[in-house]
């Protein structure tokens, strides 16, 4: 635990000192995306990797966070911190609802249901004209950001904080008693219940936490783009990334999604700049299939295979 705290404060300090090293705004613009992916991947892994419930609707949680933030900003001009909390709360609530679905639905049916949730919510937002409906809503960023070189840098730092919190939460879940229970659920839910694991409670908890973290990742989205619009907020790409990155990084350990997100996120950013944004999505899809087929334990698994730990 101590080592982790030390490590995470190190990461934050590093994030804070980035502006001294990098003058180019674009670095932060791109870095923000990578951090956002870390949060999404880590959050997905809590329900998907640990408990084995494959969520295809990550975009919905992300967008609920984003739109909650936008609506509250428009209505009460809430500061970003509160927007994030509210976004996380709303998406957490949605997570709780999706958790209730696990009562009846498993495997592929649960996954399809999450897609259904995403599309129904997207249609709701399409028809919600207060936040711009289908045409979207431009959002002005605050012109001044105290202590930070620019608003992008500020958002970068905020997302770094969320990422550290997300990874910390995932690590706690994994290493505490909750983690073993979730793994038991993934392996065999019936046996888990009969071994005294309160499966419903754990699933609800995991779904809520996972949803809330995704919502937190989505909350600053509108400020980041200075614009929000349903198609991209609910984009299937969020779902693919959230799912692909833990699988590629390795689902068993909290560092897996982080590795996956950093690796893929960076590749994506580079590819977007140098080749095209289509190829970058394709890269994710292809890597996903390749890893699922050839290296089911992800990069972590490969690493362990080549450097077995001594016991």
């Amino acid at each position, binding site marked *: 635990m101590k080592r982790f705290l030390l490590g995470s404060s190190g990461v934050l300090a590093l994030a804070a000192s980035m502006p001294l090293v990098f003058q*180019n705004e674009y670095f932060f613009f791109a870095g923000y995306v990578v951090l956002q992916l870390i949060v999404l991947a880590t959050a997905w892994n809590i329900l998907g990797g640990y408990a084995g419930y494959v969520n295809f609707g990550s975009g919905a949680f992300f967008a609920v966070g984003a739109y909650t933030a936008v609506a509250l900003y428009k209505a009460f001009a809430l500061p970003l911190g509160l927007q994030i909390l509210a976004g996380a709360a709303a998406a957490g609530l949605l997570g709780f609802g999706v958790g209730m679905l696990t009562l009846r639905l498993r495997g592929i049916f649960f996954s399809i249901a999450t897609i259904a949730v995403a599309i129904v919510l997207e*249609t709701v937002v399409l028809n919600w004209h207060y936040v711009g*409906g289908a*045409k979207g809503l*431009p959002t*002005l960023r605050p012109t001044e950001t105290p202590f930070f070189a620019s608003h992008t840098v500020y958002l970068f730092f905020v997302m770094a904080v969320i990422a550290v919190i997300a990874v910390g939460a995932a690590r706690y879940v994994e290493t505490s008693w909750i983690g073993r229970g979730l793994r038991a659920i993934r392996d065999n839910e019936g046996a888990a219940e009969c071994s005294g694991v309160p499966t419903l409670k754990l699933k609800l908890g995991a779904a809520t936490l996972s949803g809330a973290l995704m919502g937190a990742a989505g909350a600053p989205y509108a400020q980041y783009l200075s*614009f929000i619009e349903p198609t991209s907020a609910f984009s299937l790409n969020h779902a693919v990334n959230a799912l692909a990155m833990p699988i590629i990084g390795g689902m068993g350990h909290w560092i897996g999604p982080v590795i996956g997100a950093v690796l893929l996120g960076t590749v994506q950013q580079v590819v977007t700049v140098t080749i095209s944004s289509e190829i970058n999505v394709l890269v994710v899809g292809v890597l996903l299939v390749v890893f699922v087929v050839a290296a089911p334990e992800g990069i972590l698994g490969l690493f362990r295979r080549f450097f077995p730990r001594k016991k």
Partner: protein
Amino acid sequence: MKIRNLFAAALAALSFAAVAQQPIKIGMSMPQTGALGGGGKAALLALQMWVEDVNAKGGLLGRKLQFIAYDDQTNPALVPGIYTKLLDVDKVDLLIAPYGTNVTAPIMPLVKQRDLLLMGNFSFDVNAQIKHDKWFNNAPWGAGALAWGGPFLDAGQKLGAKTIAIMAADAEFAQNLCTGARAIAKAKGLQFVYDQNYPPNSVDFSSIIRAVRAAKPDLVFICSYPAESAAIVRAVNELGVGPTVQMIGGGMVGLQFAPIMEALGPMLNGFVNYNSWVPEKTMANPAVTEFLKRYSVRAKAEKVDPLGYYLPPFNYAIGQMLEQAVTATKSIDSKVLAAYLHKTEMKTMVGNIRFDTVGEWSTPRVPQAQFRGIKGKDIEQFREAGKQVIIGPAALKTGDIIAPFDKARN
């Protein structure tokens, strides 16, 4: 010591020379695929022609132009990223907006924040709320929907229309235009018998056209994007809108694009739709004719819109405005250029333009034209006058409307 001084001087001279020779970078994103991709490619070609023309004359302020354009796939979410990259990585000097309202809206906050000049590109009312003082739109419709929807509804009123049906895409441009058209229709005392938004990228309009038909309207005002426009024209042809309809059309983007005109052919007959430029005698001028001749040669080679009436002249005009402003002020600074654009009349091949406070044409000019006598799918027939007869506004009018719609179809 001396040597070092000499070295420093040489370095300074070198870097000065480098600055002088460095090109002026002009950056933009342009929909080259997706809903607006067809029009976007044509517009891009016109801008490239302008850049080539200027560079052939030796550039601006002695510097060559470098043109950087990315494809935004008509996806609003990609646009802020592209413009951030244009500014921070590519370090462009001047910005042009992508063609279209929904892809322009997301960058308005960005340019306002960084206080940069942005040349608008056929978007509609994007600056109405943000009121950025360095925004200048090349589109001829001016602020608000009065100039746009007005002539259509005026003609409808003259025909004695009492009821109107409105169908609009759930997208920025269509919603803005529609809101305007509603206000005008209300002022004229028209009764709304159908008023629905349909989801973006809808492909099947049979149910909607049936519902419109059942409402028995006199006028049908449609605000749609290209693929939907084509689908709507098809559905109207298959299902009919009923004998009550006097006029149909108004704000359908896409019916100005040659590939869509070619694909629809005679199905277009009778539709009344807005335009920016049509080959009628009230609009022709030698500069545009000369440009279109050069353009169509290039367009055929690059397989983009061979007619190029709608966007290309106006995109070339963006270039002409930049050229005039930069040459006159000897500057590429946003503030200086914006001030010049505000106070000076701009001379372009699509006419002389003065901008109002929100950067729109102070004297709008939107012809509403009716498709007539189109036979078969030959694209060349659209080059003749009389195929798209301007029915309003009065200054541009080249013929009276034929109504009802069913009669105009034959």
